[in-house]
């Protein structure tokens, strides 16, 4: 009466399952990191930021004074784009070409043609949201921006993204580690691709911690963000 049974299999599998569950929980498998949805208009950050050198605050105008960064109104787009139409003549910027995206913009804004203002039945652009914190998390952009946290710290090299994707995991652990270990405005600037201002006016403008490169810690008890 000899028998070999895989009696070891059951506990073994159980152990594996538990391990997997813990691992996924720990690695934040539930986060929507890296997802990069198709937008109604494929807005090229590189062109606006890198090529034209626009400041983030030009469009996201509340980022430094409000909880939420603010989204450019359609009129803001049209402000420039009723001069810069879909059809680009050949110039030092490059050869002549036609921009489909701007057509879309014109359709949304109900713009007859270049120079014309917004029409009567203009519709807002239904941008797809990428960076979303749960409702019970309160993230004041103003606090971070004014502490010298640059956009790139959380949003990645957004000025280089042809299509925006979620750079950080936005997990609580990710937030907290920065609050606990502190943040150096200097590195922030470097992340944004600037040399830290050593002297002159812009040094004065920048937060004091920039020059020193000291790491500024923040409160990390729950009620700082959850209320």
């Amino acid at each position, binding site marked *: 009466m000899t028998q070999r049974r895989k009696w070891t299999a059951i506990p073994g599998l159980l152990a594996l399952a538990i391990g997997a569950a813990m691992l996924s929980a720990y690695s934040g498998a539930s*986060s929507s990191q890296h997802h990069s949805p198709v937008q109604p208009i494929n807005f090229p950050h590189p062109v606006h930021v890198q090529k034209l050198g626009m400041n983030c605050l030009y469009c996201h105008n509340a980022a430094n004074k409000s909880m939420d960064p603010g989204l450019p109104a359609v009129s803001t787009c049209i402000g420039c784009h009723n001069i810069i139409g879909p059809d680009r003549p050949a110039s030092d910027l490059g050869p002549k070409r036609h921009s489909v995206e701007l057509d879309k913009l014109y359709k949304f804004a109900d713009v007859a043609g270049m120079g014309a203002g917004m029409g009567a039945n203009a519709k807002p652009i239904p941008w797809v949201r990428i960076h979303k914190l749960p409702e019970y998390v309160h993230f004041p952009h103003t606090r971070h921006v004014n502490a010298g946290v640059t956009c790139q710290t959380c949003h990645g090299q957004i000025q280089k993204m042809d299509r925006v994707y979620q750079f950080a995991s936005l997990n609580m652990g990710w937030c907290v580690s920065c609050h606990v270990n502190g943040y150096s405005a200097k590195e922030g600037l470097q992340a944004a691709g600037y040399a830290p201002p050593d002297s002159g006016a812009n040094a004065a403008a920048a937060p004091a911690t920039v020059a020193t490169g000291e790491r500024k810690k923040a409160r990390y008890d729950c009620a700082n963000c959850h209320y």
Partner: protein
Amino acid sequence: MATTATPLPGGQRPNIPSAAVRFPAIKTYDQVDREIAGTLGPSLGWFGALGIAILCMLIGATAWTYQIHEGLGAAGYQPPVMWGVYIVTFVFWVGIGHAGTLISAILYLFRAGFRTSIYRASEAMTVFAVMTAGLFPILHLGRPWKFFWLIPYPNWRLIWPNPKSPLVWDVFAILTYLTISSTFLYIGLIPDIAILRDREKNPIRKAILSQLSLGWRNSDREWRHFTRAYLFLAAFATPLVLSVHSVVSFDFAMALTPGWHATIFPPYFVAGAIFSGIGMVFTIAIPLRKAFKLEHYITLNDLDAAAKLCLFTSSVVGLAYLTEFQVAWMSGNRFEQDYFWNRVFGQWAWAAWIMLICNVVLPLSLWSQKLRRNPAWLFILSLFINLGMWFERFVIVVPSLSHEFEPWQWGTYRPTWVDYSILLGSFGWFFMWFLLFIKQLPVMAMAEIKEVILPPMRRRRDFSHDLTQGVVDPDETGATH
């Protein structure tokens, strides 16, 4: 085969733990195997009972599903009474569990002979009771789907439970208790499963049984380590059983609430737990010995001994009740005094008196030996004890909360059908497991019974020093060559 207990000569009560008289009516190893293994075949009545149990469980499950969907408001909570039937029932079942461990572990250490026949059943009872109890803390959560947040596991939020909270102590205590007691049960079962395996004809069942028996061979080496390990497990389980209910009592004792905030709680709860457990053992064992015709295994001596234990714990509990009042009285603490007055003469008098009568007054009957040795009475009494102990927890939980510091927030409590269904369901769940158990696995430790009865001998041993002379008849030991 022997069907009824053969009375001893002289009719006096021999309580001498001599192997010879432990089970006077059990003669041979074969008899043990035959009789106990014989109880395993499913019967019609068994199917009926199982059906009822499953039905009750389903009712409970439905109610729970509804409650999860609707929110806890579906239950009868009525602030300030934020804990109700669920916590009451939780403590009740944990308490039930304790007697099992007491009998199988503590009495094992004390070498109390009468444990042999009932410990398997009560150990099983422990495991299933704790399985039932374990459901309730989850069940009473506002967001039950988040219960695992109470367990310290590494997570990407980098946050952990609060080890200062009695509820986290509970998690540790209950989980440990469940693990250890089920291991203890299983270890004890291994040799018996081996017996079943060897008696089994049906190949499939045989295969399964030989899996469960882990290839146990009864070799001397196995027995040697087995007995040692069993001893140590018992040694662990003994303080564990004391700690678990102390921890449960901390849920209350650590709070500020008048009627909860008392240092007497741990011993008081442990005594209560064992008391209620013995009650449940009676409720289970007495019908069992009748149905399975095992009266000569669970003898009147055993019941008698258990009844004494019951009487003892009952009086401990009674003393605890009195002490509570005395402490409140002498504390000079207005809140305590108001509360305890309200408990016995106020809105909750009815519950308090049910508790006192069932737990303190009725068990006094056990001073009479006649009643101690009367299974019918023990069974009825045990039902009262179960009721009384449920109400003890009710009296501790609900009235305290309904009559706290803030008079403006004094209230009352009325459960709804959801509470009742889930309470019913818990009994269904418990008995479902228990019924399944008794027909799949032996309700008595065959190997251990063999250990205490006379081994087959070729030569007649001299029992002249033993007052039970003549009990052992060489012709019946089958030692005939």
